[in-house]
């Protein structure tokens, strides 16, 4: 078993969730509770990675992170290293790809919070951001947890975008699903079997955990 690749997958997924937490919490606010023009556009943009072919996503990310892009150039000036085919570039790609998996359960949960609670909080002196952070978000904690679990799990399994943006550099961008691809390509079917079984067992556990969270949420309200 390629433990290095598996370790890298988990590290990458954990860091993605760390970045997604503030980003997702920030974006879920207008998506769930906002009334503004352009909300549908924001909803579509953040949901895009769900239906876009991973190769299309990967292609645009290479263009956006590449050495000729403003972002790639800025990164190179700051760190002296390239963003594509690096762990950091991969992390950025993972964050964007997994954003909808984080957002959707959270936004759904926020949408289910009793509006009167938010109104009462406002009459008690809370500004909209305070209402969100002190009332809406604590009450949507199961959605937040679901989002964290789902985006983590999806980040572990992501293949297409990772291959296009990260390539296959052992110890830097070679994740478990890419190692599995390699094992199949080199006819190491026993090794592939072990890696696949591990990823399968992990995915199953994650789905069971989220469905448990969902039933608990219904009991809560």
């Amino acid at each position, binding site marked *: 078993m390629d433990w290095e690749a598996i370790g890298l997958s988990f590290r990458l997924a954990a860091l993605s969730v760390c970045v997604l937490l503030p980003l997702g919490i920030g974006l879920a606010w207008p998506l769930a509770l906002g009334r503004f023009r352009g909300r549908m556009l924001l909803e579509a943009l953040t949901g895009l990675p769900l239906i876009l072919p991973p190769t299309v996503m990967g292609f645009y990310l290479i263009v956006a992170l590449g050495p000729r892009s403003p972002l790639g150039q800025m990164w190179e000036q700051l760190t002296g290293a390239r963003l594509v085919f690096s762990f950091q570039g991969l992390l950025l790609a993972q964050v964007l790809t997994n954003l909808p998996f984080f957002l959707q359960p959270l936004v759904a949960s926020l949408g289910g919070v009793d509006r009167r609670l938010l109104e009462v909080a406002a009459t008690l*002196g*809370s500004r909209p951001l305070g209402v969100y952070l002190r009332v809406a978000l604590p009450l949507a904690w199961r959605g937040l947890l679901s989002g964290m679990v789902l985006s983590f799990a999806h980040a572990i399994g992501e293949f297409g975008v990772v291959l296009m943006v990260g390539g296959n550099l052992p110890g830097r961008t070679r994740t478990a699903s890419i190692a599995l691809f390699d094992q199949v390509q080199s006819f190491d079917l026993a090794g592939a079997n072990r890696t696949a079984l591990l990823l399968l067992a992990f995915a199953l556990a994650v789905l069971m955990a989220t469905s448990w969270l969902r039933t608990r949420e219904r009991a809560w309200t």
Partner: protein
Amino acid sequence: MDLIASIRKTFTNGATVQGELRIPLEHSGLTVLFGPSGCGKTTLLRCLAGLETPDGGLIQAGDEVWHHPERGALVPVAERGIGLVFQEAALFPHLDVTGNLAYGLRGWSRADRERRVAELIELMGLGEFARRGARELSGGQKQRVALARALAPRPRLVLLDEPFAGLDRAAAAQLRHSLRQILHRLAVPAVLVTHNPLEALALGDAMLLMEEGRIVRSGPPPVLLAELEGGPGETIGCVVRTRVLGRVEGLLRLGAGSVELVAPDPGGGFQEAFACIRGEGVTLERGPHGALTPRNRLGATITALEPLGALTRVRLDAGFPLQALLTTWATHDLELAVGQHLHALVKASAIQVIPVET
């Protein structure tokens, strides 16, 4: 200083709510916003709180303009200093009772916050529930917490949207009883939305009557409620303010001027009460005593006869305004005429006694 509002709000289905009102903010006092369900009372309340944006009109507290006809909302909900209590208590389920009460006290020093929460817990009799979660409380307890939470940050005005509607009778009566005392003690003015005439009568200092999206009349609750039109059983009847003269075997002796009435005692140690007398519980008698009990037999003069199809409403002066609802046949048999003197017999069971909450 008064809260002056002139509000107009049109919904997408074409329904319009509008009204002009003035609520004194300087001293405690309870203004009842009264009307049938769906007449726009809650919308008006939500506009005052800033939860709904009116399409037109002015809302002003003293010199402070909250909503301007051209410039829109100028003061957001959070800065209006308005406490709000919904029909369902809407307590924060992730906080315990203490946490709910302290929610609006952000920015207070820790010592002040703790003192204020302790004061309200004592005032509301919530001592044993201080650390309980919202789901562990009964309906009446929840509503007490909601009221305490609204009062905690010392609001300029409290808005109560049918706060008793979801409670059982005993809990509603208990909360109604403490509400006035608490508002008076904390010197907070309040607006109560209700469609229950008994609540309006028991609690209101002033009343605004709403019909189909408009405020149609304003005045003291007993006067407005007695004028409410409606068929038998729909209205509370004539309203007389009385003193309690005595209590005997589940009955009350009530004095209204020189007249004495006997009515069932709803319980409680009140000294003053409104007696609500329905027209269908009043019969008329000409000439000397019949075989009927002499209690609640009042000398009266007919002031008006109003035919209502098969029934006729007879308006009387019995030292206070009184009405009798008779079949039109009966009015012919009795040969009733305006100015005639006769006796009105009021069934004790037709008198509803509403304690005046002081």
